[in-house]
Structures are given as C-alpha cells and as structure tokens.
C-alpha cells in the first residue's frame, strides 16, 4: 500500500512530529487556515454571485474575475500550505477518514472546474453566454466548494 506508506512517512517526519508535540502549533496553523478560508471564500463568492446574476451582477463577472484572481491564488496557496502542515501531523488518521478523501476529491474537482469551465464562462462576453449556463456554472462551483468546506469541518468530528 504505497499511499499509506507515504502518509506514514509524512506523519513520522520531523514536521509532523514537531506539530504533534507542540501545544500551540496546531491551533496556530489552524487559525491561519481559517483566515485564508475567509479570503478564498470571499473571492469565490463574489465571482459566483455575479455568475448567478446576483451580488454585483452578471455584467461585472469578467472584471471581478480579474480583480479577485490574485487574492484567490494567494489565499489558495496559504490554504494548501497550512492544510499540508495540518495533514502531516495526523496523516495516518486521515488516510482512514472518509471526510478527508471527500474533501480532497472535491478540492481537485473545484480547482479543475474553476480553471476551465468557470474561467471561460466568467471571461466570456455576457451577451454570448445564456443566463441559464451562467447560473449553472455558478451553482456547480458553489456546490463543489461547499463540499470542500463541509469535508474539512467533518474531519474535525472524529
């Protein structure tokens, strides 16, 4: 089982051990993860609300995509970094936790969807994309991200 071996290697690495042994490292990394969640949540919501025809409106989707992109990428990097650190401290437990796999699958799908379908739809001329398609894209994106968040919260209940 190469994946389990890899996870065991992470957990027994000095990083995993240091986070487990410290009383405050895990909560501090968790806090960073939470703060980045607010930023990524805000940028994802602003774009998706506009695709839904709500918030700042469908016509501003392309502009909003450009405006929020650096914040999305920056907060994503912080999420991935802090998430990886949290992961190393309990990798073997997570291997057996279904919520972890739900979250990782949803994250993968969210990122692929964001970089392809959502990007194309948001940047397209609003007159050439049907409102139905825009709404569907916004809804699917929100749903995928919801599973990432809910999966993350669910990991804590074990």
């Amino acid at each position, binding site marked *: 089982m190469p994946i389990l071996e890899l996870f065991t290697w992470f957990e027994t690495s000095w990083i995993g051990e240091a986070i487990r042994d410290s*009383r405050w490292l895990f*909560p501090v990394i*968790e*806090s960073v993860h*939470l*703060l980045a*969640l*607010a*930023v*990524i*949540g*805000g*940028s*994802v*919501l*602003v774009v998706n*609300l506009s695709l839904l025809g*709500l*918030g*700042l*409106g469908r016509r*501003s989707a392309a*502009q*909003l995509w450009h*405006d*929020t992109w*650096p*914040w999305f990428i920056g907060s994503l990097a912080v999420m991935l970094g802090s998430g990886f650190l949290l992961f190393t401290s309990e990798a073997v437990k997570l291997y057996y936790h279904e919520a972890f796999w739900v979250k990782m699958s949803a994250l993968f799908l969210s990122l692929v969807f964001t970089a392809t379908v959502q990007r194309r739809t948001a940047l397209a001329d609003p007159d050439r994309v049907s409102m139905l398609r825009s709404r569907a894209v916004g809804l699917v994106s929100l749903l995928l991200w*919801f599973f990432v*968040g*809910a999966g993350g*919260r*669910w990991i804590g*209940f074990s």
Partner: protein
Amino acid sequence: MSPLGVCRWLESTRGSIALHESIWMYPIVESAHVLTLCLFLGLTVMLDLRLLGASLSATRVSQVIRRLVPWMLAGFAIMVTSGALLFYAAPVKTYFNIFFRLKMTFLLMSGLNVAVFHFSTSRTMPLWDQDSSPPVRARLAGGLSLALWAAIAVCGRMIAYNWFDHHAAALAR
C-alpha cells in the same frame, strides 16, 4: 442577577442541556457557524479590500456596499444565531474562556468601526466613490476592520482550546 448567575441559569435550562448532549445538533450548528464565515467574513474582506484600494478597484464603493451588504447581513444573522446557540450549549465554561471575552471585545470594537464609517466617513463618499484608492479615513476603516475580524476569527477558533480557563472555572464551582 450577575452575568455569571445568568450563565448558570441558562446552563440549567432544558434547551442548553439538550444542545450540549446532542449528537447531531451541536456539530451542525458549529459547521453552520464556520461555513457562514465565507459568506459574511469573506464578503466583508472584499469590501475592506475595496476600501483599501487593494481589490475591486473598477467598481464604485457605493456599488460594492449596496450590492454586497444584503448578503453580508444575511451571513451575519446566521453567524450571530449559530454563535448564540454555541454559547447557549455551554454558557458557564464559555463565560470564563479568555478567548471568548477577547472575541466579544473585538466584536464591539468592530461595531464601533462600522458606526464611525457609516455615520461619518461615508458622508463624503460621493467625492471618492470612483477612486481606486479612497481617502485615508476610508482606508483606515477597511484596515481596522480586517485586523479586528482576523482577531475575532482567531479568538473564535481558540475558544475550543480552553488553555487558560481551568483555574477560573474551578474557582467558580
């Protein structure tokens, strides 16, 4: 009745005990509280970034406020309701938690910041509505809001780790 007395009374009510001992309700309320963070705090961050001139610069400030504040208020209502329920599930323990007290203090300061912006700073908004970087008072409001909300979120997370309240809780018993 003292605040502690109120907390003790709350803790003895049937609803508090039911919530505290529930298998599903407590995790559901807690999840709602955390995930609504994206709606309320996420959009607040976006507005603050606009005030700072760091994002959404092509959109007028008044437009961002008019279109996003209803969503923020809906998120805030869910945050406050779920937060009150979380407090209700363990009032005495939470009352003694230093992070809870810090969080409430920062929350109050954040409310003051909003009030100053609403009643004073935003009065001149027509003059800088389109500016990609608003005047210093507006930027200050955005920066303060970001700092206070970061502190509120971190304190909220830390309430779960009752590091410093063992002693005080023991004294109260």
